[in-house]
């Protein structure tokens, strides 16, 4: 490992270093504000390191990790999302009695795991990153210890996550047994050298997909999603919905493109079924939900389905063309989902989650700005113009139409129609008249700033996406070529 490779890993080392700093800080002086501040500074430092590493890419830092623009772009996205979630967590937990100081630490380790995933080109780093992420998440979900729902969610996540890891390992083992390779490029060489589809590798990829499908909560691996989202503290639900899913999806895409697994066309049929099921099932199950967090959980299942549609299109067009829609859609999904969960978390406290729909009645007239922001987030999730969600959906449409996936596109349209119903239902409830209940809410200035930034991004990128499109284009062409 030479000095260049070491420097290229600076964003990751910065994160790891910050985690240690937070740990030492807690040992010296328990203070929630201090821990959050250290964590925030660490994330910002890591982002700054990203910027300085960018010009020298790509660097293959050991066989485990490739630091290219693709990885850096997504690490930046994940870190920014982590920063936003940290802000929401601060407001959410600051009034809670008890020991909150480990929360930023766990967020940092989860982010480290996610960043490793985004950069990994080897099954070993892949698995380490995934486990780092999952184990941190498990503690984060159960962080409000004295609450039954949170604990239930944490246990559920732990057990199912363990099972899915087992699937994943089995899949890796099968692939390794046949090809003798754990390095993605090596697997590519193996696949390229065979004309026919190898049954062992095929089943291996299927098992890997089952393990990842759990993390992405694709139907039929989705059963944990609503319970965990409901039980976890609101900002952490947002974190699971974005960082955890995003990092896994980034890895999945990299695996498929760099090993050329698209050559295994039967796989795409399996994915198509999963995508269609996720879109239709997620939206259908959300229809009758009266719990906003469960509703957002089901909607996130559907959104992963949309994303998978763009991913599948990589089978019929050049895979470089697929990186672009996926990147944009992920970014749109991040902004919107963090914003939506941010609103929920502003309204919630560790004692009482604001997840019942009745709680939102008349929100428009009680807290107009918050309701307006939530409305914009929901419209963006529904893919209505003026919001970034629309441009994202437009990207999915172009990608899938390019690949000729008309059946899946039809599923997307039907799913969007169903989706409108439940998004609009929340908006309707918010606009209903309600006797003004004076709730003594605290002024969460940090959350308000974050929500404002997210809303500005949402509208700005919805109206004028060119700037971002240019960046993403350079990422996808330089990164994956």
């Amino acid at each position: 490992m030479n000095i260049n490779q070491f420097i290229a890993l600076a964003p990751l080392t910065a994160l790891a270093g910050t985690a240690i700093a937070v740990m030492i800080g807690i040992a010296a002086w328990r203070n929630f504000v201090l821990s959050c501040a250290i964590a925030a500074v660490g994330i910002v430092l890591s982002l700054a390191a990203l910027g300085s590493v960018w010009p020298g890419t790509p660097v293959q830092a050991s066989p485990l990790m490739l630091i290219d623009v693709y990885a850096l772009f997504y690490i930046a996205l994940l870190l920014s999302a982590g920063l936003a979630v940290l802000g929401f967590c601060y407001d959410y937990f600051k009034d809670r009695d008890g020991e909150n100081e480990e929360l930023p630490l766990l967020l940092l380790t989860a982010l480290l795991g996610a960043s490793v995933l985004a950069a990994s080109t080897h099954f070993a780093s892949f698995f380490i990153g995934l486990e780092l992420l999952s184990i941190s998440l498990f503690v984060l979900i159960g962080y409000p210890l004295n609450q039954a729902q949170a604990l239930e969610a944490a246990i559920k996540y732990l057990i199912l996550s363990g099972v899915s890891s087992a699937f994943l390992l089995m899949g890796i083992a099968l692939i390794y047994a046949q090809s003798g390779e754990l390095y993605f490029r090596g697997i590519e060489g193996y696949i390229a050298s065979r004309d026919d589809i190898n049954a062992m590798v095929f089943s291996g990829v299927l098992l890997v997909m089952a393990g990842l499908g759990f993390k992405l909560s694709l139907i039929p691996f989705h059963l944990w999603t609503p319970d965990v989202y409901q039980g976890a503290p609101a900002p952490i639900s947002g974190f699971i919905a974005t960082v955890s899913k995003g990092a896994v999806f980034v890895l999945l895409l990299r695996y498929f493109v760099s090993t050329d697994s698209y050559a295994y066309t039967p796989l795409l049929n399996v994915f198509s079924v999963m995508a269609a099921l996720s879109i239709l099932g997620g939206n259908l199950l959300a229809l009758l939900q009266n719990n906003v967090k469960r509703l957002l959980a089901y909607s996130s299942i559907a959104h992963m389905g949309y994303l998978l549609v763009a991913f599948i299109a990589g089978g019929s067009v050049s895979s470089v063309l697929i990186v672009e829609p996926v990147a944009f859609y992920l970014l749109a999904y991040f902004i919107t989902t963090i914003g939506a969960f941010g609103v929920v978390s502003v309204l919630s406290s560790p004692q009482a989650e604001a997840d019942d729909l009745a709680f939102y009645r008349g929100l428009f007239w009680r807290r107009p700005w918050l309701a307006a922001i939530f409305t914009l987030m929901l419209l963006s999730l529904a893919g209505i113009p003026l919001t970034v969600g629309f441009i994202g959906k437009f990207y999915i449409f172009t990608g899938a139409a390019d690949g000729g996936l008309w059946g899946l596109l039809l599923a997307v349209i039907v799913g969007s129609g169903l989706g409108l119903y439940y998004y609009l239902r929340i908006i309707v409830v918010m606009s209903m008249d309600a006797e003004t209940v004076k709730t003594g809410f605290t002024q969460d200035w940090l959350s308000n700033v974050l929500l404002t930034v997210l809303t500005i991004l949402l509208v700005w990128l919805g109206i004028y996406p060119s700037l971002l499109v240019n960046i993403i284009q350079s990422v996808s062409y330089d990164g994956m070529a």
Partner: protein
Amino acid sequence: MILFLLICLLQLGAFIAWFFGCWRPGAPRWVAIVVLTLEALLLIFPYRAVESIGSLPSAWFGYFYVPWIPRFGIEFYLAMDGFSLLLITLTVVLGFIAVSSSWAEIKHRQGFFYFNLLSCLAGTVGVFMAIDLFLFFFFWELMIIPMYFLISIWGHEDRTYAAIKFFIFTQVSSLLMLLAIVALVLIHREATGVYSFGYFELLNTGLSPEAAFWLMLGFFIAFTVKLPALPFHTWLPDAHTQAPTGGSVILAGVMLKTGAYGLLRFVVPLFPDAAHQFAPVAMAMGAIGVLYAAVMAFAQSDLKRLIAYTSVSHMGFILIGVFSWNGAALQGAVITMLAHGVSAAALFMIAGILQKRLHTREIGNMGGLWSVVPGLSAVTLFFALASLGLPGLGNFIGEFLVLQGAFGVNRILTAAAALVLVLSPLYALGMMQKGFYGPCSRHDFLPGFNRREWATLGLLVFISVWLGLSPQAVLNVSAPAMQSAMEVAER
């Protein structure tokens, strides 16, 4: 630049109205009036341009062009011809009517109400001018959201259901259109190598008959849902009935016309051959819609629902007119759009006035109103007659031209559609008979129109008569646009 200002002014006015609403509850409606007046003044400029159009080779005057998303060749591209100019004028006029009919009706949250009303108008004006397909879709969606809020917040008893139904119908159908747009652009890219959403570029895309048919269907469904034509019309009676009066006026008067506009501007010129083959089906849908909706209107007991069904009936004529695709029929469709906009807006306004005074929309609960409020009843009779197509009023000209143009294309369907001339007096006069004649049982004292209402309805009466007596002035404005559309489709 004027074109951009037309949209900007309305949207800016919307924000100002909202802002003033927080400050003083009565202010937003005045803001709306001022904004609409300025908008009307702005419209003088394009009318000046119409007079000088004779020498220009193209029917288009006025462009506004800014690159928007170069990655996909998307441009912020507005243009205007006589057809869009007429519809924008209609939008502005009905904007006044909507403000007037909301003047006393809307008491709660006026700021947000007028914000939605003006944004809705801004979106509609955008739809009529956008000449980039992506931009068109953008505005197409943008006008739906404020309308959704208008219905779901200020509507009547069943508003939530109606609003969500309205939104889902239009949204799902418009996603089909988006799909068709994207597919068309991709086909165009394959042929030329560049992305472009521009209308003029896409006009000459070479399409296989099969592709053309499916793409045409995507557009066609989106527009016929909005129009609405028969199998897709069920959202309309609900939405119209539940919307506040101002919302109904905009919905019936302007928003339905966006569907007709889309058919005329996009479906036929972009896919002339497919549209030609599809014409018998489309015309049959139109004819069945005309008759079916007339019968349904006759069966309604709710005044607003009745008017809503008459709208469906009139829109059937437009569908027939557009797919006949000859000069007379197209001009007839244009006149029908304008005349129906005026008469439906007036009828909805009257229904709103009656509901405010009687607290009912049931015709059965009215009865004998003529003896109590003769002025109001006379105006109602006027617009009922306009709606049934009395010669001398605008609707007659439109329907006559459509039937005349369509007769050469498809005699059987035209003859069938013409039967509505028997059916429409049934519902129009039936409504008058049940609601306004006979002995007055329940209402001893009712206030008639006040000055604002007289002024508003007087304006509409005037426009209706003017359209009926001298349609040539309007026909002259739209003629070059129709001419060039027909030339485009023949190429």
